[in-house]
């Protein structure tokens, strides 16, 4: 068991990667064996993430040096700086890892019956596993160049999956847009990495954070990184790709692309807090993030109101709810160099933002899956052509209600808990932020009431008389996310104390991240 814990950071990345390349081979023998392999690999990854998480909460940061005689030797003898690739997993990384692993498992189970009719399924599952690898790799790596490589893995597989149903013109268009913003973003990240290497001859994030001088070149690099990751996490004004990519993406993949988007948001926080940290002109960057967040909230929700395509409507809410996360963490970032304010409301704001990240990954993943369930049975995403589906699809309707109430912040669901934390903390920085956030929450409720009204209630339509409930595996996929949502709603204080506060503290405590690699020099 000890050996498993020590090696789990690399195993969490290696197992889905190995399974990804075994999938096409096993497909040749049997489709059922391939399905079992995919689910088993993802379930085992989830298990490892939970084992590792438990250990991190007990003993602190885990480092894993690739190619070293022992994985915990971060700096080779006779050297002053780390030269090998190091995976560094702290409470923040594992928090994002739990989110990604759970959403990917649910998405894969959902996909089992949903893509049964498609061709090229062996390649579908290869890409699906690679998308998982990309997210987990980005979250666990402690190396700038490694971050770029995993970002590209995530982007290429995500774009190919979004465009998977190539028979639809809009799917190809969505995939192409995702690929364009991803490749431009990734090249900006690589350029910034080059700037760091030119100045410090280092690639390791912890070593760079220690050496950080905050020169003019570092400011340019920071600008490039913030633009790249804000674009990838769908913040206004770089949000235009989000609805186009999410809407036509096949079932099961939309929530995974969503957790990939959140992985990029994780990278944004990691760069701001850990790489720059106290060296940063925190108030300026914090306010830039806050303003991007408020704009995202407002623009996203107003665009969502008049949509008639059910998945497109939900995709606009992705932008809008992403704004809450940026707002919460931005408030914390803005007061990072003010210890007093940080203690009174900064930590609470960061925790609220992070709590909303994981809550939203679960309930928005659930909502995207219910939207796709309607498309699977009805063949249309147009709300004006639906009606009375609560009669035919009872479970889907219940799952939708759970997700819709949670996203609108209706007590006692978890969306309410995390939004309340953000409201309270943002109020102390500037009351206007809280007012905007509350108004956006009300409009969100209005928009989901519209979906409920048009899709699930109303008279039974004759053309949909024979529509049945979706197959079992799709229900299980939705059930996992609904179960996680309900668990988080019932025990918010348990969840906040066990995983959210440690993650927020890990973001704030830059010295611990540096010391884990540099050995407290």
């Amino acid at each position, binding site marked *: 068991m000890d050996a498993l814990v020590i090696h789990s950071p690399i195993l969490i990345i290696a197992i889905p990667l190995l399974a990804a390349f075994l999938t096409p081979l096993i497909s040749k023998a049997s489709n059922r064996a391939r399905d079992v392999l995919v689910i088993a690999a993802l379930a085992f990854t989830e298990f490892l993430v939970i084992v590792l998480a438990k250990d991190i909460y007990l003993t602190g940061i885990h480092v894993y040096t690739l190619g070293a005689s022992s994985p915990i030797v971060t700096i080779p003898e006779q050297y002053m700086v780390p030269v090998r690739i190091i995976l560094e997993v702290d409470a923040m990384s594992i928090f994002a890892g739990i989110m990604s692993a759970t959403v990917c498992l649910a998405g894969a189970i959902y996909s089992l019956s949903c893509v049964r009719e498609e061709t090229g399924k062996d390649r579908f599952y290869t890409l699906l596993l690679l998308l998982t690898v990309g997210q987990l790799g980005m979250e666990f790596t402690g190396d700038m160049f490694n971050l770029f490589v995993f970002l590209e893995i995530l982007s290429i597989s995500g774009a190919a999956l979004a465009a998977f149903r*190539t028979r639809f013109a809009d799917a190809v*268009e969505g995939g192409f847009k995702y690929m*364009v913003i991803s*490749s431009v973003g990734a090249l900006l990240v690589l350029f910034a990495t*080059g700037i760091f290497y030119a100045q410090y001859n280092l690639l390791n994030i912890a070593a760079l954070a220690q050496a950080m001088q905050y020169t003019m070149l570092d400011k340019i690099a920071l600008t490039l990184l913030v633009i790249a990751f804000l674009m990838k996490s769908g913040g206004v004004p770089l949000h235009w790709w989000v609805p186009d990519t999410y809407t036509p993406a096949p079932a099961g993949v939309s929530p995974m692309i969503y957790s990939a988007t959140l992985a990029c948001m994780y990278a944004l926080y990691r760069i701001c807090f850990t790489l720059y940290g106290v060296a940063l002109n925190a108030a300026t960057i914090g306010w830039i993030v806050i303003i991007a967040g408020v704009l995202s909230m407002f623009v996203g929700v107003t665009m969502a109101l008049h949509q008639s395509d059910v998945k497109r409507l939900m995709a606009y809410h992705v932008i809008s709810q992403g704004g809450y996360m940026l707002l919460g963490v931005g408030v914390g970032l803005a007061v990072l160099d003010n210890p007093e304010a940080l203690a009174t409301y900064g930590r609470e704001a960061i925790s609220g933002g992070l709590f909303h990240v994981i809550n939203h990954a679960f309930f928005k993943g659930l909502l995207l899956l219910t939207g796709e369930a309607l498309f699977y049975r009805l063949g249309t995403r147009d709300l004006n052509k639906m009606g009375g589906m609560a009669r035919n699809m009872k479970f889907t309707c219940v799952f939708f209600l759970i997700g819709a109430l949670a996203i609108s912040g209706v007590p006692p669901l978890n969306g309410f808990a995390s939004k309340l934390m953000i409201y309270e903390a943002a109020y102390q920085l500037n009351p206007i932020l809280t007012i905007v956030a509350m108004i956006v929450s009300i409009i969100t409720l209005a928009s989901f009431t519209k979906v409920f009204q048009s899709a699930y209630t109303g008279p039974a339509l004759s053309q949909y008389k024979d529509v049945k409930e979706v197959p079992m595996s799709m229900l299980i996929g939705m059930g996992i996310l609904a179960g996680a949502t309900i668990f988080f709603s019932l025990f918010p204080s348990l969840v906040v104390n066990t995983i959210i506060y440690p993650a927020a503290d890990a973001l704030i405590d830059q010295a611990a991240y540096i010391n884990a690699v540099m050995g407290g020099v």
Partner: protein
Amino acid sequence: MTGSIFNIPFLAVAALVGIALYIIMSQRNLIKLVMGITILESAVNLFLVTLGYRGGGVAPIFTNAPEGIMVLPVPQALTLTSIVIGVAVTALMLSMIVLTYRHTGDIDAEKSRQMKG
């Protein structure tokens, strides 16, 4: 080593980045958009290789290396990786353009758009 002649590649990088960003933001033809991204990639690769160059350095291969300084090996490794990734990205984007053309008969970003609003 800090002579002005060594700054010429950096000026080229700046020019290429500027050209690439202009193309990406202004062109509506999807193929030209991909060209812009490829130029941006070349600019970043040139930047990395130039970083690692040391005036009069030899290739960083330790076996039977001649006397003198070596150029830095790490940026070259980074560049190789980046080139390989770039090929995959370009191939994927071009194949998506082929599919877009089959669906809509056009590779103009405005005319082949399906989704609006």
